[in-house]
């Protein structure tokens, strides 16, 4: 049996794994910065939000809600709603990170984004023993964090100089497509995706982005119903 991968290699592996996703997040971060300033956030607060909340889709929603003059409590509830999916990532990783100290768990939880989770899926699915693979998640999380902070600062500084006609926010959607399509391995997953998509579109007018949660729940339920490893 070969020796376990050392922490340094795991960390570098995490950086490599997240690199394409981090690159894809640059236009997202730029646009967030631009929109945050347009929404009336001070440059300091706009930049701080990227570090405090550190969640792309939630930050986009914040700019929309601040522009609309939404009360503070509703903004917090909306952010919680759209970020609830992270609890499911947390549940997925819990057992694999159970041996770590509270400090490690806190840092990794802070860095647990869609991108970090997606980038480390393959590493954590590997059944071979890997006692240092939390370093892989740290590398992916920290890599994305640095790129996200830098690109949102650049967006804040750029202000309104990026023409809206470039539709750069679409790069975010394309990133999610690039992640989700390869997940399509069997009929149950296809049905889960289709159901989630249909419900999300049908419910898009729900307030506070509740459609995303409702759609994800419907998709998971549909997938479970058709799971080939189903009711045993």
């Amino acid at each position, binding site marked *: 049996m070969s020796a376990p991968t050392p922490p340094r290699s795991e960390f570098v592996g995490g950086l490599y794994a997240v690199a394409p996703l981090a690159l894809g997040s640059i236009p997202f971060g730029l646009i967030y910065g631009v929109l945050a300033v347009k929404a009336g956030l001070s440059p300091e607060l706009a930049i701080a939000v990227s570090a405090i909340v550190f969640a792309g889709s939630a930050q986009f929603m914040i700019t929309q809600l601040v522009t609309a003059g939404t009360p503070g409590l509703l903004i917090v509830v909306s952010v919680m709603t759209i970020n609830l999916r992270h609890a499911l990532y947390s549940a997925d990783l*819990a*057992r694999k990170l159970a041996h770590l100290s509270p400090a490690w768990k806190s840092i990794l939880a802070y860095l647990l984004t869609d991108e970090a989770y997606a980038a480390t899926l393959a590493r954590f699915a590997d059944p071979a023993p890997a006692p240092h693979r939390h370093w892989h998640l740290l590398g992916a999380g920290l890599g994305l964090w640095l790129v996200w902070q830098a690109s949102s600062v650049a967006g804040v500084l750029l202000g309104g100089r990026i023409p809206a006609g470039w*539709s750069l926010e679409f790069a975010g959607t394309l990133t999610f497509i690039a992640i989700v399509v390869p997940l399509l391995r069997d009929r149950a997953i296809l049905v889960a995706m289709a159901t989630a998509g249909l419900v999300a579109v049908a419910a898009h007018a729900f307030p506070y982005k509740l459609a995303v949660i409702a759609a994800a729940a419907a998709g998971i339920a549909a997938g479970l119903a058709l799971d080939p490893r189903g009711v045993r």
Partner: protein
Amino acid sequence: MSLWVVMLAAGVMTFVIRLSFIGTAGRFDASPWFARALRFVPAAALSALVWPDLVVIDGALALAQPRLVAGLVAAGIAWRSRNILLTIGCGMLSLWLMQWLQVFM
């Protein structure tokens, strides 16, 4: 309430959500049903984020529009190549091409 306080509260709640299961691991365990459900989480959550971006414009359903076509092109590229940057590049190029040619306008 100052916007700073709102953002701090939003950040703390996001952190608590992300820490939830990781922080309590060992004290209670996910049921087998929950574990099976996890397999569908990334696919369902990401699909829920993507589809409204492809077919909803300004709050109205719109199928004949460049974003849906560009998204489908990107999905095809993603399926064949499994390459994220290539997928983003081809998707953006298709969108820009259709906007430039004023397809659907």
